């Protein structure tokens, strides 16, 4: 085996530069911590974004695909999700999956942190919404939030940085449908610029928000937190794959072992380690970091690492709006309005917790045809009927944690370095099935009210494992959780986890702003209470 190069020690190593790793790196650099962020992927040059290519439809389904198993880029590790009803998607690069996200940023509700107390399900979080609120606000400032105050479904909050993204004719039609039903709706909060913000241009509504744009209109951490972190002295070390968190005989973390850009092994000593590798990558790394002091894998004395995997469950209905003045592919794909009419638990329903409705727009010609338009004699008639008229109303459902849903190390599948790949075992729970059945019926009702035709129902979306949560859960009890309320591992006080792994429950909203708020809170804890980690 090649000898391992030992780098100069630093205060903190952050593993991963996505939504949360970037936020922690920036925050610690701001307080003069010597911080290195190790990222398995490269910088992505905005000029190479698929939206700059006439071939964007092909790129969207190949090397810009959401699934690492389809992309198979050098930095991607394969994920065995054969035993999962929902397939895993993620992106590996500076910026992580924010390179590929749709930037929808609703917040958790206060009740999401108290589901055991309120509803008798899962567990309460060891923190409250109001513990996180200042960090949600700070994150909005850094990323730039478009939206508007006054939403009756959520607590009052600080003003957003920008007005809402325009609804478009389709969004207005759907909003009026919700109004006619007497149901809640509100413009989506989004980390998309509705006006120029911090040197990034306003969105020009090309539609393919998940493919990013050179304008920088949609925030991703490679153009928000990371440049600021670098200016403050933070280092981003790219194309470097961490394969082990190293520990000493007393169980404390001593740094990380990784393969550098040339594929050579290196050791980065540090006073502390922050893992931000997402709800799949983090348990994979912990389970692979076995040692005499952590025989079940790092920070796994509770045997909770990898368990309680949550995705969000998605279902809904689709229809055609035939009489709009503009096509439904004008505007950001998934950022129009949301409805939380059915978000909180209602004892009259046969499930606990609830869901958020989100509207999805039509897309370009090939995405319209693929999956919806049949081949053969009816092809053109069906295509013409759908193109520019299709609209979707999807429900993102609270996916309660179950220990049987989990991440393990695959006994056979590995990445390019021979590091075991994650194996996902997941099935949709009974509560989720009832919740989704309710959501599908209500979605169809909204579409009917909007005047949509050709309404079809989708009982479960499967290629939607965007939100990876719960696999290193937070809690006060070291026997039932992996980290404490500050994201600090119970088993190693200089190890922190800041991605969706620490979620106790998933709520019924997109998780990224909550992940980032938690990360900023952990960084604040390190800055104020763990000065011993600073040299």
């Amino acid at each position, binding site marked *: 085996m090649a000898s391992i190069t030992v780098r100069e020690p630093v205060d903190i190593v952050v593993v991963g530069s996505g939504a949360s790793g970037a936020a922690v790196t920036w925050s610690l650099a701001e307080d003069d911590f010597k911080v290195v962020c190790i990222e398995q992927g490269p910088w992505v040059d905005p000029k190479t974004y698929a*939206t*700059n*290519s*006439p*071939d*964007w*439809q*092909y790129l969207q*389904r*190949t*090397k810009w*695909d959401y699934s690492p198993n*389809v992309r198979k880029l050098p930095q991607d590790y394969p994920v065995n999700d054969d035993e999962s009803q929902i397939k895993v998607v993620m992106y590996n690069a500076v910026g992580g999956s924010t390179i590929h996200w749709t930037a929808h940023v609703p917040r958790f*509700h*206060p*009740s999401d942190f*108290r589901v055991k107390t*309120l509803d008798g399900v899962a567990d309460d979080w060891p923190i*409250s919404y109001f513990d996180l609120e200042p960090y949600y606000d700070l994150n909005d400032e850094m990323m730039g939030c478009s939206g*508007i105050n*006054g939403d*009756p*479904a959520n607590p009052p909050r600080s003003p957003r940085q920008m007005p*809402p993204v*325009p609804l478009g*004719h389709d969004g207005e039609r759907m*909003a009026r449908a*919700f*109004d006619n039903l007497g149901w*809640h709706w*509100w*413009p989506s909060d989004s980390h998309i610029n509705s006006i120029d913000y911090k040197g990034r241009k306003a*969105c*020009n*509504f*090309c*539609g*393919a928000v998940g493919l990013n*744009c*050179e304008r920088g209109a949609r925030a991703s951490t490679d153009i928000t937190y990371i440049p600021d972190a670098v200016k403050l002295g933070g280092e981003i070390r790219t194309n470097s794959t961490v394969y082990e968190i190293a520990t000493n005989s007393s169980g404390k973390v001593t740094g990380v072992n990784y393969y550098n850009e040339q594929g050579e092994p290196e050791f980065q000593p540090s006073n502390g380690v922050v893992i931000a590798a997402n709800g799949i990558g983090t348990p994979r790394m912990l389970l692979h970091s076995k040692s005499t002091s952590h025989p079940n894998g790092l920070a796994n004395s509770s045997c909770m690492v990898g368990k309680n995997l949550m995705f969000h469950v998605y279902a809904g209905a689709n229809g055609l709006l035939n009489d709009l003045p*503009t096509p439904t*592919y*004008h*505007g950001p794909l998934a950022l129009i309005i949301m409805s939380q009419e059915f978000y*909180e*638990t209602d004892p009259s329903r046969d499930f606990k917790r609830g869901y958020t409705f989100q509207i999805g727009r039509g897309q*370009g*010609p*090939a995405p*319209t*045809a*693929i999956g919806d*338009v049949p*081949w*053969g*004699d009816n*092809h*053109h008639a069906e*295509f*013409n009927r759908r193109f520019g008229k299709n609209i979707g109303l999807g429900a993102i459902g609270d996916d309660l944690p179950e220990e049987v849903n989990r991440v393990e190390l695959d006994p056979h599948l590995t990445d390019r370095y021979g590091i075991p790949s994650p194996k996902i075992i997941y099935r949709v729970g009974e509560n989720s099935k009832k919740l989704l059945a309710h959501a599908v019926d209500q979605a169809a009702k909204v579409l009917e009210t909007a005047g949509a035709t050709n309404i079809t129902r989708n009982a479960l979306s499967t290629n939607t494992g965007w939100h990876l949560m719960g696999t290193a859960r937070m809690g006060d009890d070291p026997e039932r959780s992996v980290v404490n309320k500050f994201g600090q591992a119970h088993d190693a006080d200089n190890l922190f986890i800041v991605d969706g792994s620490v979620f106790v429950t998933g709520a019924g909203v997109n998780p990224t702003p909550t992940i980032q708020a938690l990360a900023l809170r952990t960084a604040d804890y390190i800055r104020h209470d763990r000065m011993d980690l600073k040299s």
Partner: protein
Amino acid sequence: MTSLHPNSALQKSVLDRIIPPVADLPGAGGLGIENELERMSTEHHKFSDILFSAIESIQSRLGEDTVTVENLNKAISGFESVEPIPFALLLELVYLAYYSDPRVHNRIGWKTGPLQPEGHPLPPWEESILAKVKNRAPFWTEVD
């Protein structure tokens, strides 16, 4: 090595069955998108050999039958039902190639080329649309 099938006549017929001619445009077989199909098949592993193996499978299903619309429909449907995953990939590939063609874009009214930098116009945000919902009393659950 080509991803196209040596039986180019059968390949053309199959493609034309998947997306038939319309108005003044040929179908996917007659449009001249073979180079695009080959490029898409070879540039990314996802579509490697899909076209070739699909035509092989359809050809074997046809057997000695004459290549008629009816027989092609039957052979393609057989392939679809027995091998749904390769068939879905075939359809995805053909749809991508066909709906990336500027002549098709022109027919359906889609602006060809990259999505940026032009984007699409949207009417400006108008707050008056909130009139009804913003008068609703807060209904989020308060906790300690």
